[in-house]
């Protein structure tokens, strides 16, 4: 007679997608839309590895089965608001509104962080995410291309009334998929995006929150695609969830790709 825990283990192994694929990104000097301080022209991003695809519903289901403290009916309210995983049919079942290969959304920053740790990884930093997201299929930095911007803005131009697509969009020059056009993604330091080292604005923490303020602190005010990411992340608290917000994980460059 197998024990219940053995059944659970077997179930989680069956449900788990093939081990997540992490790809190497070279890092380097990078012109962020949010300069670290007014004097630094570029930030340095260390080489790192990034999950090629966002975490899916199937993967997150396997996680909550092995880490039941992250089930929606058991999670501490401090770590996730009431809408956490609310689109799932049950605390441990996906159901029709959460297809397995769709990116998991309605997850809090705490939950995303815990998931990444379970994969021996962490959430990417904003600069890492921005570095990766600057690429397209042929270029490491496509941000100056109006067509690239237009395509990304196209996603924003549609309300999210239709179901999310599955993961597996076009790979960029590094082999990373779905950084644009599918979901918003948590980053590790999302809540520090508003902190400024710019002495001219006296560290006004509200500078992105109202009219005109954003334009003062952003280097690249025409890059609406990046600007909207920053605005979105800035609006969140770590326990918040939204129907379009998911995540992927990152690892140091020397980490083994498992």
């Amino acid at each position, binding site marked *: 007679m197998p024990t219940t825990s053995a059944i659970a283990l077997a179930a989680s192994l069956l449900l788990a997608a093939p081990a997540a694929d992490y790809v190497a990104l070279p890092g380097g000097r990078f012109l962020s839309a949010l300069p670290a301080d007014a004097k630094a022209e570029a930030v340095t991003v260390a080489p790192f590895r990034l999950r090629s695809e966002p975490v899916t519903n199937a993967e997150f289901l396997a996680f909550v089965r092995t880490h039941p403290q992250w089930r929606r009916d058991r999670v501490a309210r401090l770590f996730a608001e009431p*809408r956490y995983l609310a689109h799932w049919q049950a605390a441990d079942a996906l159901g029709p509104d959460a297809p397995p290969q769709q990116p998991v959304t309605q997850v809090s920053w705490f939950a995303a962080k815990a998931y990444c740790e379970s994969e021996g990884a962490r959430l990417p930093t904003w600069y890492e995410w921005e570095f990766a997201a600057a690429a397209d299929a042929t270029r490491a930095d496509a941000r100056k291309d*109006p067509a690239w*911007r*237009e395509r990304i*803005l*196209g996603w*924003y*131009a*549609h*309300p*999210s*009334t239709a179901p999310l697509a599955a993961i597996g969009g076009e790979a960029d020059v590094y082999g990373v998929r779905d950084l644009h056009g599918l979901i*918003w993604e948590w980053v590790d330091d999302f809540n520090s995006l508003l902190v400024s080292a710019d002495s001219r604005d006296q560290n006004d923490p*509200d500078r*992105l*929150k*109202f*009219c*005109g*303020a*954003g*334009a003062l602190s*952003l280097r690249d*005010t*025409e890059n*609406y695609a990046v*600007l*909207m990411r*920053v*605005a*979105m992340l*800035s*609006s*969140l*608290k770590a326990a*918040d*969830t*939204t*129907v*379009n917000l998911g995540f992927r994980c990152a690892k140091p460059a020397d980490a083994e790709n498992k």
Partner: protein
Amino acid sequence: MKSALFALAAVAAAAVPLHGHADAAAAAKNPSYVHGDFGPPRGDPIHAVLTAPPHVPAPTMRNYPAKVIVELEVIEKEMPISEGVTYTFWTFGGTVPGSFIRVRQGDTVEFHLRNNPNNKMPHNIDLHGVTGPGGGAASSFTAPGHESQFTFKALNEGLYVYHCATAPVGMHVANGMYGLLLVEPPQGLTPVDHEYYVMQGDFYTTGKYREKGHQPFDMEAAIAEKPTYVVFNGAEGALTGDKALTAKTGETVRLFVGNGGPNLVSSFHVIGEIFDRVQYEGGTHVQENVQTTLIPAGGAAIVEFHTEVPGSYVLVDHSIFRAFNKGALAILKVDGPEDKSIYSGKEVDSVYLGERANPNLAAVTQATKAAASGKLTKEEQIKAGQQLFTGTCSVCHQANGEGLPGVFPPLAKSDFIAADPKRPVQILLRGLTGKVTVNGKDYNSVMPPMSQLNDDEIANILTFVLNSWGNPGGRIEAEDVAKVRAEKPATPAAGH
């Protein structure tokens, strides 16, 4: 509605002045008195009734400061911007412009901003009627599926724009995130028959004007400030046809007009009306008798006018290509009886000749009327003919009929006319080319046919000529002209 409005207004008018004096007295006594702060809210909290454009909430009819709860939801949705063209609007309350908010000066407003869970974007609100950092924006930054609350006191009366101020601000505004907040003065506004809510905005799409299908936001065009659409109330045709604003003759109409921008300034004008009163810039000063009022982006105006005669009055941005090529047109349809003493409609449709505009053509009008009734006299013909001659003939033949030696033959004491007084009829109808001899002098020139003149006019002109400057007299009648006009044209040489 009108009578109810007046009845309520009467109550308010009776009650309010006392309070208004109390406010003024407090201001005079206490130099630290804050303008528009009438103390803490009184009575039960009131849930503000918000309205979708073009409707305006009823007057507050209050004479005390209250706590007013405003609940506004942000909804991102696809809607038509023109026929067969859709656009993803970001809205306050599901409409562009957003819901109209009406409070009274001194009210304490508890504001709830909800961001619909299906939205993709975070949003906030900057109300220009708020005194405080960001106009509320910093306190209302809200992720999808969340709600923010903040409270402000409406210290200043006036008509104020509100808008989203989340980065990228321009894009949020360009997608329709603006509306109007009216802070009534303590005594309320004068009652009128109709109040309407109209707001202009410019829109930027990747497709051309009226290109069918779903059109995405064009960031480059927005930065270049070259809109594809300039419209009232969020879409071309939002206020035309069945959706036109309506009024009856003899009514007073008040328009709360805002301009959301994001880029363009509006030259707001109503074709066929004169604004009796304009609270320009939405402030307290009133300008009267205004044709066109300038409404800045992020600004507003209250315009009022009285309707006199029926018809369709067209609201436009008088930067007129926007009206006819980008959509900035709306209609106010006024029904009721005609008043010909104010406006006649078309009375006369006649040929207009530029150089004839100068002389007084009263005699011509008189002759036309007399001819129509069959009682035209020779004297009337001469008078009318003189005026027509001044406009049409005197340029060449001169006012005194002497012509110009060697170029234009004289009509005065003309042996050419005396020889055949009917000959000039043919000349006026067909023209005259080549050599003629008049009073012993040769002229070799061209007179074109006066084909713009009708039979009456030719008869009058020639009767005037025959009875002037020593010519033999006589009369040419319209039938004489008609007869010649009906004849086959003679060969060019036949007249000479």
